[in-house]
């Protein structure tokens, strides 16, 4: 019997059987498919690397007669192992998204009037270069500021360093993982990198402190996390919200927001008191253990209970779970850690906890970085000039341990706003939504008024695009080459290649080309001795032993790694004395606490809630909201609020409220989600949804952005990282602020009525408030 197979299914199947850039011809034989064609279709399967987020999974694109029809995971890629998330699958819809930037444009109306004219690339680039040179001539080259993000953002960062301006910044540091990296470098001499070097699959206990693992879909980590769960890993989820990770946890610790350092210090206290630490590792590979022991003496679980509202017995029980499972305890370092502006010290506390458990280079703990077996040729270009003036963001001096590679976005905004210490007169925003990533967006908006010139390079328009003087539309990641992506801190090492899988759909250009062409017009031709980036990659690989042809065909080339230490092997840490610094002399010398101290946080005050935020699994930051395949899954965020509190304010699920912060800044109407899975003193708003775009985009109808409400922030004095969880909000309905009429304790301890507020008789009954029961804080049975 003849087997039926449709043309479309065939092309989608073929590469799953064997990967690679296979080209096949097929005609439709299936009558179950609508289109019966007379001419065969050209079907190509091309591997590349995803950029729907920064995780960079290997993908295989199926292209039918030049049209992208499907994307799937590349089974050869050791990170995502043939799987991709919703966003990765939806890359197809990104390419053909109607709201994309489709050609270069120069503004003709007032800035912010939304009037541009379409121009040629030559005209757009000439004009941009002319404006940047004018700023340079008048104010000095340092007056040109850059915000860059994403894989192609490196080209812009390079361009600005060739130009001689030190003022470039990326949100990946100050608004994301910067403080974590600094905390780990201070402790271990190296950071956890990206992808983080975590052996989740073999962990017996997984400790997640405010980690959105499961809602931030970092594919390789989710594969390992769910394998770990299936292998019996017990999860400790510390989160004011009942997250996806909490739903998989044995212990959900609904901690009072901002008190995590107290919890970690109490865990360290308990582990040291019970001698549950790794004695050999502590003796051989760390310094400062006696100082640490003295330091944490007073930080008992009882002390932490009062601060964190996590019962002492739960702190003891979870500490015991970690001690018993060590070294297979995966203490997750977190990723977005820009919470309170003292985040380096919290990251230090987490790093110290993981150190005394001895998990470095152990199965179920942290992977080691391996030595990459190949080296790439460097392009023969001049060294970048040393900038004549100090950077305006204070990285490296006002914030002594801030990254001078990634910089501090919010400080660049502040300097532009104040025009101090010296004028910043132009901005290039490259692949970044500066209104949705940098806090206090009103400052960002105002700073634009101080600019002589403002150019945006992006794939699709975002709110800041609206004010651009010039728009340079970039290819999607499916239409361009980017730099080689090399990963050494994983169970296998690999290099993967992003390459175009289709011809560009619109009049767009790749980031490397835009940087090169601007560079040439800025007198920097010596830095760009190539016409095609493919030639650069070929040259880089020429003497490396890595075949470009094979890399292009397979998308990734893997090498063995050495992720674990041999038994008895000691590790030379990359600190001054090759040891882990439990006590940091470096911090002491800079005038900071050498061992982390808990700093109390303010309470929101009556009627207010702390605003916390996070990711949804189907969206990436602010960049996927307009993707129709993703927007149909989640088109708007719901504000999470504790059920008892919400009911006491007379609210119903899906009812719309306005959210107003301490500065009187309001959202548009947001639907609420009431749940017992949210702490009583905080509300949660998913990140990445609409701002105030004026007519630019169809999908953003309402101002429901979390960042709109983050008008206040703190700055970590060590790293310069921002603290974004310091805003308090209240809910407004019918122009009246709502106030809870009950008090709730998350850990089931008590729920007392607020005196002076009129109470309903049957309130306890209605709200199902728990009886006083301490042990109830432990989430059993999962």
């Amino acid at each position, binding site marked *: 019997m003849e*087997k039926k197979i449709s043309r479309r299914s065939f092309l989608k*199947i073929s590469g799953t059987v064997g990967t690679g850039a296979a080209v096949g011809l097929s005609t439709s034989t299936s009558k179950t498919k609508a289109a019966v064609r007379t001419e065969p279709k050209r079907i190509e399967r091309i591997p590349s690397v995803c950029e729907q987020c920064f995780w960079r999974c290997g993908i295989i694109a199926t292209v039918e007669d030049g049209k992208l029809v499907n994307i799937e995971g590349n089974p050869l890629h050791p990170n995502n192992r043939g799987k991709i998330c919703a966003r990765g*699958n939806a890359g197809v819809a990104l390419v053909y998204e109607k709201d994309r930037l489709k050609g270069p444009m120069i503004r003709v109306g007032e800035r912010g009037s939304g009037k541009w004219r379409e121009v040629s690339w030559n005209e757009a680039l000439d004009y941009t270069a002319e404006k940047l040179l004018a700023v340079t001539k008048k104010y000095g080259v340092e007056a040109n500021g850059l915000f860059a993000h994403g894989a192609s953002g490196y080209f812009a960062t390079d361009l600005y360093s060739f130009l001689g301006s030190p003022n470039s910044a990326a949100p990946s540091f100050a608004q994301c993982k910067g403080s974590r990296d600094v905390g780990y470098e201070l402790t271990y001499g190296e950071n956890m990198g990206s992808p983080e070097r975590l052996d989740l699959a073999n962990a017996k206990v997984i400790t997640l402190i405010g980690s959105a693992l499961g809602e931030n879909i970092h594919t390789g980590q989710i*594969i390992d996390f769910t394998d770990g*769960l299936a292998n019996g890993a017990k999860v400790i989820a510390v989160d004011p919200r*009942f997250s996806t990770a909490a739903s998989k946890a044995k212990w*959900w610790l609904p901690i009072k927001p901002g008190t995590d350092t107290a919890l970690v210090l109490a865990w360290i206290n308990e582990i040291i008191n019970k001698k549950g630490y790794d004695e050999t590792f502590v003796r051989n590979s760390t310094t400062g253990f006696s100082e640490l022991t003295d330091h944490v003496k007073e930080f008992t679980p009882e002390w932490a209970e009062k601060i964190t509202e996590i019962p002492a017995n739960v702190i003891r029980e979870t500490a015991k779970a970690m001690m018993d499972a060590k070294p297979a305890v995966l203490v997750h370092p977190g990723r977005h850690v820009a919470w309170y502006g003292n985040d380096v010290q919290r990251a230090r506390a987490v790093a110290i906890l993981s150190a005394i458990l001895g998990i470095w280079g152990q199965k179920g703990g942290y992977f080691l970085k391996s030595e990459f077996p190949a080296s790439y040729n460097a392009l023969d270009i001049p060294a970048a000039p040393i900038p004549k003036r100090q950077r305006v963001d204070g990285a490296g001096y006002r914030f002594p341990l801030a990254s001078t590679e990634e910089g501090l976005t919010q400080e660049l905004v502040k300097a532009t706003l104040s025009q101090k210490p010296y004028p910043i007169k132009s901005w290039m925003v490259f692949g970044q939504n500066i209104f949705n990533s940098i806090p206090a967006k009103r400052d960002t908006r105002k700073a634009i008024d101080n600019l002589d010139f403002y150019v945006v390079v992006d794939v699709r328009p975002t709110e800041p695009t609206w004010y651009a003087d010039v728009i340079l539309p970039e290819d999607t990641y499916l239409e361009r080459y980017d730099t080689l992506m090399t990963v050494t801190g994983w169970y296998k090492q690999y290099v993967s290649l992003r390459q175009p899988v289709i011809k560009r759909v619109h009049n767009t250009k790749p980031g490397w080309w835009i940087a090169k062409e601007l560079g040439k017009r800025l007198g920097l031709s010596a830095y760009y001795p190539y016409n095609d980036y493919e030639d650069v990659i070929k040259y880089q690989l020429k003497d490396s032993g890595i075949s470009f042809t094979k890399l292009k065909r397979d998308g990734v080339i893997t090498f063995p790694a050495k992720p674990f230490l041999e038994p008895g092997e000691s590790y030379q840490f990359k600190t001054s004395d090759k040891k882990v610094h439990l006590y940091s002399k470096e911090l002491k010398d800079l005038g900071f606490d050498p061992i982390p101290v808990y700093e109390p946080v303010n309470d929101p005050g009556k009627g207010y809630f702390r605003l916390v935020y996070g990711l949804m699994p189907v969206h990436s930051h602010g960049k996927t909201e307009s993707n129709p395949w993703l927007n149909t899954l989640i088109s708007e965020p719901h504000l999470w609020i504790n059920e008892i509190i919400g009911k006491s304010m007379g609210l119903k699920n899906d009812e719309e409220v306005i959210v107003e912060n301490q500065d009187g800044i309001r959202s548009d109407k947001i639907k609420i989600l009431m749940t*017992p899975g949210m702490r009583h003193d905080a509300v949660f708003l998913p990140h990445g949804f609409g701002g105030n775009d004026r007519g630019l985009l169809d999908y953003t109808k309402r101002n429901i952005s979390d960042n709109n409400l983050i008008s206040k922030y703190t700055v970590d004095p060590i790293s310069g990282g921002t603290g974004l969880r310091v805003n308090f909000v209240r809910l407004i309905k019918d122009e009246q602020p709502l106030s809870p009429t009950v008090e709730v304790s998350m850990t089931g301890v008590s729920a007392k009525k607020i005196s002076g507020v009129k109470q309903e008789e049957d309130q306890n009954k209605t709200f199902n408030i728990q009886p006083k029961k301490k042990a109830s804080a432990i989430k059993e049975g999962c």
Partner: protein
Amino acid sequence: MSKYAMVIDMDRCIACHACEVACRSHYDVPVPYYRNWVHDLRPEGVYPDIKKVSYVGLCNHCDDAPCVKACPTGATYKRKDGVVVVDKDLCIGCGLCIEACPYGARYIDPVKEKVDKCDFCIDRVEQGVEPACVATCIASARIFGDIDDPNSKVSQLIANGAQPNVSSKVNVGPNIYYLDSHNHFPVVQAAFPPKVPNMPTPQKMWTKVLRPLFWLAIGGSFLGQLAAFSTQLFKGESDIKE
């Protein structure tokens, strides 16, 4: 002979929705319709026993499929390997099968005006490749296989307690099973019980099938349609034989 089924491991699923988008991509499913779905429920319960549950669903490829019975043209039929499919050439888009389905697994493609639904990616399966939703599942929460083979993983998981979504009122032999060790499945069953099949009545047959056909006849092509219809009907029948 094979009999295909799928197990959803609720302990592993993290509700990332990758399966939904992979399916949309593979079959050009127009927004807002879907062939498979993940419905996220609000976290509920009483602290500390809170549950955050998602309902992962698709066509159940029922043994006693109401959609097959409801279909007036034979377009919806059950293959010998258990897969319920729609022959697009025979489908007249009347939608009677949609009303009959207890799981809401079918939709009418507004452009093609034909009913569409999950077919277990049978084209892929026949090539030895997993269904698209299974292949992309990051959490490995979807397990596809042959329940006639007692050694298959699906058979073993069913032996270990994976259960179908049936109720005391509705049990039409579904072949999607749910594995759950945290009492999450009862939450799904309570929120999404199988609907009592709404089978065609003579009135519905008239308004949705016969009357449209009558107008087609007025259009002058009735005989041609009938001839094509009969031919395709036979072809369609023979195709399902292995």
